[in-house]
């Protein structure tokens, strides 16, 4: 299992692995927002938590279509399915590798981008906390979407259509934590909801992903 994680991390850092694509996308989207809504700092600090969360979510989405499709194309998914690793752990490891290469960098860079959007000072820590709790759910749900569409030619668009609605609860509560934190309100209720969504996704979705993958590999 460690071997699979290390291989996926290594692949993403090698040429054409796509590491940093999501990060660059997140950066560009955040920079474009002040251009589109105008430079009023009061307006920007109001919308900053929501914009940063939406940007992080879309950046996560960007790399999902490579998650299982590459392994399917070169046949290693078939070989992994016949290996001693259970498919449930294969998809869990793949989601973890996706989170480390996409989710975690987004969490780390979000405070810097918060400055660009004039995010109020108390909001920074809550933004990082909400992304840290929320992005694992994005990776796990995304892996489920990737498992559903594996083997389809041009499955990327379909994948986005399937996954975005599933991201809604995470987005609502994640952005709510950041927004409440930024305005100095009580945050415990949305934090608990967000953590609950992540815990449930991590606990249940790998079984669903492995099940659809088995059907798709037939």
């Amino acid at each position, binding site marked *: 299992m460690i071997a699979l994680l290390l291989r996926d991390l290594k692949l993403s850092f090698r040429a054409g692995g796509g590491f940093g694509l999501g990060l660059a996308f997140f950066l560009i989207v955040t920079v474009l927002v002040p251009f589109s809504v105008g430079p009023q700092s009061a307006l920007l600090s109001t919308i900053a938590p929501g914009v940063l969360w939406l940007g992080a979510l879309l950046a996560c989405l960007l790399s999902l279509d490579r998650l299982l499709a590459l392994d399917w194309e*070169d046949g290693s998914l078939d070989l992994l399915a*016949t290996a001693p690793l259970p498919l449930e752990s294969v998809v869990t490891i793949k989601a973890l590798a996706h989170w480390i290469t996409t989710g975690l960098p987004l969490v780390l860079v979000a405070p810097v981008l918060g400055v660009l959007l004039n995010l109020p000072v108390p909001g920074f820590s809550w933004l990082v906390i909400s992304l840290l709790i929320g992005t694992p759910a994005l990776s796990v749900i995304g892996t489920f979407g990737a498992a559903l569409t594996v083997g389809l030619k041009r499955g990327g668009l379909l994948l986005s259509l399937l996954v975005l609605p599933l991201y809604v609860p995470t987005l609502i509560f994640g952005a709510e934590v950041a927004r409440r934190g930024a305005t100095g309100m009580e945050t415990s209720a949305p934090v608990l909801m967000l953590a609950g969504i992540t815990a449930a996704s991590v606990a249940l979705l790998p079984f669903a992903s492995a099940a659809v993958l088995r059907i798709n*590999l037939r």
Partner: protein
Amino acid sequence: MTLNVTDLAIARAGIPVLEGVNFTLEPGRALILRGPNGIGKTTLLRTLAGLQPPLSGSIQGAEDQVAYAAHSDGLKPTLTVTENLVFWASVFGTVDIEPALDAFDLKGLSDRHAGNLSAGQKRRLGLARMLVTGRPIWILDEPTVSLDRNAVDMFASAVRRHLETGGSALIATHIDLGLEGEVLDVGPNKAKPKPIDDFDGGFL
């Protein structure tokens, strides 16, 4: 470990392709699978590898014993030859990749990226993967595609050594590998179309 297949029926994309497939594969034996294109050889091998369920019949002794080599080699172009093999070795819980590199003459290529190998070299690497699995039953689907004469001999002697150490192999191929093994021709097992029953006939 003996592989026992009784009265197996399989389907591809929901359409039955083979039925009544029976064979036993004892340790130390090779079985050459033959049959015309499209008869369902690949589907049969995928079923035995556990990638899809059979329509009916039973497969005994395949669980956790089978190493499967498909048409594609499952190589990562940006990893080196050694990294590719080490990955599969650790997935299967083995450590030593040297014999596999030796058997397919990959020593000189070990630091090259798999993406820079020729088709035949990639195939050799894909077949070397079988040696690091440590599994007793090899299931090989057209293993000699894009191999030259020399590499085919390398492959045949790797299989021979595997058989001598108590392994077994089921190989779908159209060429003569010079292996002593029974031939399983699945041509006669082609699934018959379902007879039209009264319900279907009512529409005609």
